[in-house]
């Protein structure tokens, strides 16, 4: 009994020592491999996305060939929904009525397992990237990579990648109190092999197709076009785009300013308030997303993103009007 304990203690000691020496130099290389694998490999599987007390299940098929990337993501619960992507073109299929299917084009969103930006070099500036051991996900042996934020303005991430291919099989986000904010997990996945062409076609096939006309109207702006500016961005965040766009249910176009540190994204919406209207103020949260709202010179400012409450609040408080 005692010797068993001793062996166990020795074993624990040795293995943690060996892991500690496994060192970070290849953690960054592993990130590169993870970023590329999601685009370069063929795979099909089922993953869940969990945040708060919600769980969503999706099926994904991804094919890479000479023509580029082809992908279908099918939502398995709730209302039927399929996203068919051909390189940058993303079409969303939904049943509209008994005989019709509605199709609308979306801007590309990063869909699991392609969560990492193609360019991973800047990630080390904002996160400490380290090996966090090994694990098993969906039956595959994984390397675990931890991304520890260098400040309080972003969440902590953990990535589980297949040791052989680098495909991301699980990704979890933790908040500043080390609580799980949300996670994507493959429950079943096959990598490689032939992808049958029928697997990439939407199942929601109706007789009549209702197409909403391309992307919702949006115009890209430059900072000079804007009457607003974010004066104190948290470190590492940089502008991605600035848009003037029409949102469903809104009479007037809103400005959307998008910022990212490469992994986390924050949007700032600014829109005129109807005179006499009272807008909500302060911080709120929904699932993995934090909101911050305030009014500024008869305008409403809404900041949101999958970042800590402190980040959206700092950005929101630093919005100032620009003298023209």
């Amino acid at each position: 009994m005692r010797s068993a304990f001793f062996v166990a203690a020795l074993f624990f000691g040795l293995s943690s020592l060996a892991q500690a020496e496994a060192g970070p130099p290849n953690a960054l290389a592993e990130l590169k491999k993870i970023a590329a694998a999601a685009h370069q490999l063929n795979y099909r599987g089922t993953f869940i996305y969990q945040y708060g007390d919600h769980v969503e299940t999706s099926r994904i098929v991804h094919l890479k060939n000479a023509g580029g990337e082809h992908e279908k993501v099918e939502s398995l619960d709730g209302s039927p929904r399929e996203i068919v992507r051909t390189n940058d073109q993303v079409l969303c299929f939904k049943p509209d009525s008994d005989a019709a299917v509605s199709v609308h084009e979306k801007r590309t969103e990063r869909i699991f397992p392609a969560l990492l930006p193609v360019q991973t070099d800047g990630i080390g500036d904002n996160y400490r990237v380290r090996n966090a051991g090994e694990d098993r996900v969906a039956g595959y042996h994984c390397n675990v990579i931890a991304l520890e934020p260098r400040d309080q303005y972003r969440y902590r991430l953990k990535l589980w990648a297949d040791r052989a291919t680098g495909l991301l099989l699980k990704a979890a986000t933790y908040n500043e109190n080390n609580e799980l904010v949300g996670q994507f997990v493959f429950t079943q996945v096959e990598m490689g092999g032939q992808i049958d062409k029928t697997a990439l076609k939407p199942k929601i096939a109706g007789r009549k197709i209702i197409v909403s006309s391309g992307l919702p109207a949006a115009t890209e702006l430059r900072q000079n076009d804007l009457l607003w500016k974010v004066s104190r961005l948290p470190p590492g965040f940089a502008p991605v785009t600035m848009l003037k766009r029409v949102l469903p249910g809104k009479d007037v176009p809103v400005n959307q300013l998008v910022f990212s540190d490469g992994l986390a994204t924050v949007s700032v919406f600014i829109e005129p308030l109807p005179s006499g209207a009272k807008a909500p103020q302060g911080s709120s949260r929904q699932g993995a997303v934090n909101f911050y709202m305030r009014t500024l010179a008869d305008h409403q400012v809404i900041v949101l993103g999958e970042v800590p409450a402190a980040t959206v609040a700092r950005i929101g408080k630093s919005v100032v009007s620009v003298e023209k």
Partner: protein
Amino acid sequence: MKESRISALLDGELEKEESLALLAGPEMDERLKQDWQVYHVIGDTLRHTSPLFSSKFNAEFAARLADEPAISAPQASLPRSRDIPSPTPHFSPRGNGKLVGWSVGAVVVAVSVAGWLLQSGSEFGMSASNAPIMEVTELDQASAAANAVSGYLTAHQEFSNIQQETSRYQRASMDKAQGRNQ
């Protein structure tokens, strides 16, 4: 209007003269060309006749795959030099002679990482515990407040990697709003 004419054109419902006029006319601007392409992709997809996946392509693809054994069968083609961990704790020699345990080792690392996380604050000495306490309201997904922000959430998600579903109620109202715009 233009869209329904394009749709009619695709479905072969327009007279020849009308089709030619539409194709050659000023209406066939950049935007319509894009729509035209989108309609084609949708049509191909729904008719299951996508030119992207011809039988020739499948044959070529199969041939390419045959040349890439490491990708086509990752489990079977793991290089022999890499130690494949077994699900039971064991010692396995690595190239550098280190001893590595797998599953128990993973537990140790998980624990030690968690411990490290708890100990470490940020570089600016602002750990979670002494960060300013913020009043954050949790939005109930079915609430009017949550509904009010759903449009922003959807617009934000075009750029982010979260795929948080707006609630059923929000979806319904979003869909209705989109329907009105059509």
